[in-house]
């Protein structure tokens, strides 16, 4: 088992972090930013095999990126396209994968029984998981924008009436497992940045003549958040590693990561906001963006109890 980042992954992280340092989560989807991100950095093709024009990276590499896009609250359909890509890896389609790798195509992953689709407005194609199960490419679908509390990226309510569909194959549970890992990686970034923000603030904000970080009431909460971060980071690394190197262990590791990290992320975002005091409640401050992204991510694949009941089943409890 490997829970450490390789030198290449550390370089990747530094490159992505540097690139994202200029991104403002309030700016919305900017195709120019995505163009550079997918061009210079090749992020859209990171996990797409060489034969389709991608970099052939692993889920561990991808999770390094998602941690950073999460930490930066990158607006737009990056996660949506990533989730769709991960599904396509199960039932590869040359046209779609090359289009995504080149940055020409935005995609979104959808489930038959869930009309709300992340990135549905920006998606050129829906990758739909049906009950059969089949993986279906859908174009020309109906959609209307849905505003949610997460203003950094949109959802759409989609309708398949009159859409063009093409069956790509029969996906395994791995589609769902990889989605859980990807979202957990993003959540880890949101958690990390939520903590970093309040740690910085606690070092400069003064109350009663002292920096607030010197009060145990604050310090001990931040210490607990750090403990959560360490565990979350370990779980995400582990889940990503299983995806790459121990696929039999992926289902358990993925459900575990999602169950823990989703909760920990929202708790951290909430505590970070609260410990900022009044300023954290203002629209101008970013704390609420993290709070809202954290909650959106937490329920994106269904509420925490579903991941927990999946864990129970995988562990043979009954």
């Amino acid at each position, binding site marked *: 088992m490997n829970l450490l980042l390789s030198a290449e992954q550390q370089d990747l992280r530094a490159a992505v972090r540097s690139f994202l340092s200029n991104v403002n989560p309030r700016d919305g989807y900017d195709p120019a930013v995505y163009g550079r991100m997918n061009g210079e950095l090749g992020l859209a093709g990171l996990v797409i095999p060489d034969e389709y024009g991608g970099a052939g990276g692993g889920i561990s590499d991808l999770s390094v990126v998602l941690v950073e896009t999460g930490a930066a609250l990158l607006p737009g359909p990056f996660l949506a396209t990533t989730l769709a890509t991960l599904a396509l890896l199960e039932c590869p389609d040359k046209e779609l994968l090359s289009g995504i790798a080149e940055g020409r195509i935005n995609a979104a992953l959808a489930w038959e029984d*869930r009309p*709300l689709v992340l990135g549905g407005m920006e998606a050129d194609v829906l990758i739909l998981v049906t009950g059969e199960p089949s993986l279906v490419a859908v174009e020309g679908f109906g959609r209307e924008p849905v505003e949610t509390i*997460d203003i950094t990226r949109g959802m759409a309510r989609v309708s398949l009436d009159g859409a063009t569909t093409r069956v790509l194959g029969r996906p395994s549970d791995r589609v769902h497992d990889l989605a859980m890992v990807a979202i957990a990686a993003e959540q880890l970034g949101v958690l990390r940045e939520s903590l970093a923000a309040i740690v910085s603030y606690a070092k400069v904000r*003064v*109350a009663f003549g002292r920096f607030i970080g010197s009060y145990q009431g604050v310090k001990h909460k931040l210490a607990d958040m750090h403990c959560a971060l360490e565990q979350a980071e370990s779980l995400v690394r582990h889940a990503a590693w299983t995806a790459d190197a121990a696929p039999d262990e992926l289902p358990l590791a993925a459900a575990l990561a999602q169950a823990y990290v989703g909760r920990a992320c929202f708790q951290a975002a909430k505590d970070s906001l*609260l410990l900022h005091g009044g300023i*954290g409640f203002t629209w101008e401050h970013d*704390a609420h963006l993290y709070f809202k992204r954290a909650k959106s991510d937490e*329920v994106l694949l269904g509420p*925490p109890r579903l991941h927990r009941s999946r864990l129970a089943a995988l562990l043979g409890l009954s």
Partner: protein
Amino acid sequence: MITIGHRGASYGRFSIKPGQSRSLYGSRARDYSKWALIGVTMDLAEYGRRARAWLDAHPPTGDDVAAARSYMADLYDAGYSGITWPAEWGGQGLTQAEERAFAAVARDYTLPIYVFSIGLGMCGPTLVDLGTPEQKTRHIRRLLRGEDIWCQLFSEPGAGSDVAALQTRAAEDNGEWVVNGQKVWTSVAQHADYGLLLTRTDPSVPKHRGLTMLIVDMHAPGVTVRPLKDMTGRAHFNEIFFDDVRVPADCVVGQVGEGWNAAVTTLLHERLSISSGVGMSGEKDNPTSFAALSKVADTSDPVVRDQLVELYIRSRALALFNQRLAQETKAGIFPGARGSAAKLLLAELTTFSADLAVDLVGPEALVEGHPLANALALSPALALGGGTNEIMRNIVGDRVLNLPPEPRVDKNVPFNELKVNS
């Protein structure tokens, strides 16, 4: 207790959750030691019946400020505003008994008097306690009749929990005070005619000692009110900028340099005003309540049932605690700092239940316009306003449990030598 007709109601230095109720007459209603028990005997049931008849006969005519003023005037003229306030200044001079009888009836109505809540709950009681006879004559009756709307101007961007670290200056000039600075988290300031303003008049002494409270005319030149958009996407509060605002000398509340004591009086009324309403009513409009969530959650899942039970337990535990405090208060036992425990518990219940509610309902709950989307975004408010959870824990620890105080580094240092936020 009366539920105020304002969705996502906010007041005081900060906001509260929708459905929160508060005492119409602030902490006066519970101040036995001063005005109550004057010995008026009357048929309380009859008093209540008459109040109900009046309320039935006077439905609100609109929800704008003009309608609110008109309603408040009618309420006053009918004798239902300032029931226990001293008759000398325009109150009814009646007892707790009438106040409670009216409150019991009024709970069934939604009175459109939200904009007066700061004045009735905090500013008015402070003036009654500390104002000069002239100030009381000038303001109390108008306040009770809804002729003037009041706001409270304490918090600043650099002085939140630590109110006494405020930096808004008032300098003497030709027998007037000239005010410069900024306040924040001010409810109803956009409608306010007057504000209770806490200023620093002497930066050369330790921070609690150089403050003075002023009555400021919100229409005076140099006062700018700017709405403050909060994380719900709406502006429940305002920022107020003071730019060479001149305040006459007779507008000092209490003594010059004694502003901290005056502020403590105001905050005490605020806290009472909040804790008296805590968890007592308004649950029926709350989308995160046990009742509401039981209807929408998938209760076929035993784990969901267990989560709902947790919510039920916490809600009932707090509601019963509040009822006990209320019963004690009726019996003459003043809750004091124990009210901070109730406020802390409500703040935690509010964040807990909003979080749970979204988990139970799923992504649809986060769509703009869904009641839970708003409830979630509003859920931190109570944990921040009226004292953060950390401040509440300090209060409970220090004043209820009498634990030793934190060492204070800012007690005896002149304000202008103190570490403060810029």
